[in-house]
């Protein structure tokens, strides 16, 4: 039986309880990591929807590949073989250099170089939040993806994983307004922190003194400080240096090298960092379980 007046203390009470529950949830979720399990459970329900939305695009790529002509495949093949040959020649040199480096490190009894492992993941084409730089990828805890893991593409660093579910995970790009990446300048070794701006095409280097040796065209690479990102991956190119006399810091902008809004595939990077065991509470408990 449907009553005419639903309004009453019961609904108001429920509303107040839910408002308080939301505030508690937000606080807990923001400060601790206890709610990851809730989030990943809920995203199981969401995954079919994301998959369905992505399906037409996936089908388009599939059809594009399947229906491409013999000639274009041959062309592609020839081009890629040439490229392969070139990269192999470069790798030969690199291989020798790496061995030499290892030997020298041995002589200096420095810490051994870190092993790295890669896995290709595809971006699921769904819109997340227009004012944040987040992406969803199709690999999750089933593939041992962990929170805080670095993702890169062929050009440079893209971002890091923020939420891991079983089959998918969410990643924050380096241009997100709440992202900061420890970098150093390739040419001088000067360290800096590259802050995301919320815009897809530039990063901000804050707190650089006026006399810092930075030029337009300098390349930024990851410094590895903080332990989240492996060292020496390209990040961005400095596009803009301004030293306004009235201000205490220089204004420095850099353009990310990774094709943040064009890549369809990303690489997940595992690096067994020796410091990882001693990281502070900032890394979540789930991270430690994965080690």
């Amino acid at each position: 039986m449907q009553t005419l007046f639903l309004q009453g203390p019961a609904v108001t009470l429920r509303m107040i309880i839910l408002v308080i529950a939301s505030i508690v949830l937000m606080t807990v979720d923001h400060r601790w990591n206890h709610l990851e399990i809730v989030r990943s459970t809920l995203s199981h329900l969401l995954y079919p929807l994301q998959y369905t939305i992505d399906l037409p695009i996936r089908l388009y790529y599939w059809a594009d590949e399947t229906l491409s002509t013999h000639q274009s495949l041959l062309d592609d093949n020839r081009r890629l073989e040439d490229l392969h040959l070139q990269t192999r020649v470069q790798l030969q040199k690199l291989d020798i250099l790496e061995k030499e480096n290892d030997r020298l490190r041995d002589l200096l009894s420095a810490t051994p170089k870190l092993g790295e492992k890669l896995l290709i993941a595809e971006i699921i084409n769904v819109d997340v939040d227009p004012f944040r730089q987040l992406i969803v990828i199709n690999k999750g805890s089933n593939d041992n993806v962990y929170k805080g893991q670095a993702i890169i593409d062929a050009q440079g660093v893209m971002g890091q994983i923020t939420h891991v579910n079983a089959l998918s995970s969410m990643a924050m790009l380096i241009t997100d307004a709440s992202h900061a990446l420890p970098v150093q300048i390739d040419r001088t070794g000067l360290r800096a922190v590259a802050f995301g701006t919320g815009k897809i095409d530039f990063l901000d280097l804050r707190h650089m003194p006026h006399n810092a040796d930075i030029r337009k065209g300098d390349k930024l690479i990851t410094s590895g400080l903080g332990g989240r990102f492996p060292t020496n991956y390209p990040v961005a190119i400095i596009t803009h240096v301004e030293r306004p006399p009235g201000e205490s810091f220089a204004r420095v902008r850099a353009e990310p090298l990774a094709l943040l809004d064009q890549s369809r595939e990303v690489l997940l990077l595992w690096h067994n960092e020796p410091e990882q065991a001693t990281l502070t509470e900032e890394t979540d408990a789930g991270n430690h379980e994965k080690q």
Partner: protein
Amino acid sequence: MRNSNARIGFFTIIAAFMLAIMPLPNWAVDFRPDWVTLVLIYWAMALPASIGVTIAWMVGLMVDVSHGAVLGQHALGLVIVIYVIHAQHQRLRVASLLQQGIVIFVLLFVQQLISLWVSGIMGQAPDNWLYFMPSLTGALLWPWVYIILRDLRRKFGFRARY
């Protein structure tokens, strides 16, 4: 009747979710209305006995997950909006579409304001007036949402009775 109504409600909410995550060209992204809230508002108005604040809260949590936002951010705003709709549903039902649209603009705006306040606390607040565009497009699209959902409800919801 209740069951088939609940089913059609469920499907429209799913459809709203899909519209909300569907990739759009860059110029259109800022104008995307908050489909989930619009659909929930309709159902809270049409069937306040079955779609209440609790369901709104749960749907809001799903929105948070899909947005990668902190859990509760959209749920909070949605609960408040649906509560107001609940309290005023009899008045709103007899109002003209234009009047409904105005009320819905205000509600959507308040919801976005709550969400903005939360992201401000997290340090992720967007510094752009376009942020409030979804409220406007949502209110402008309201008559269509209303008519489409009403027709759907009449077509599938009450089949047993008529």
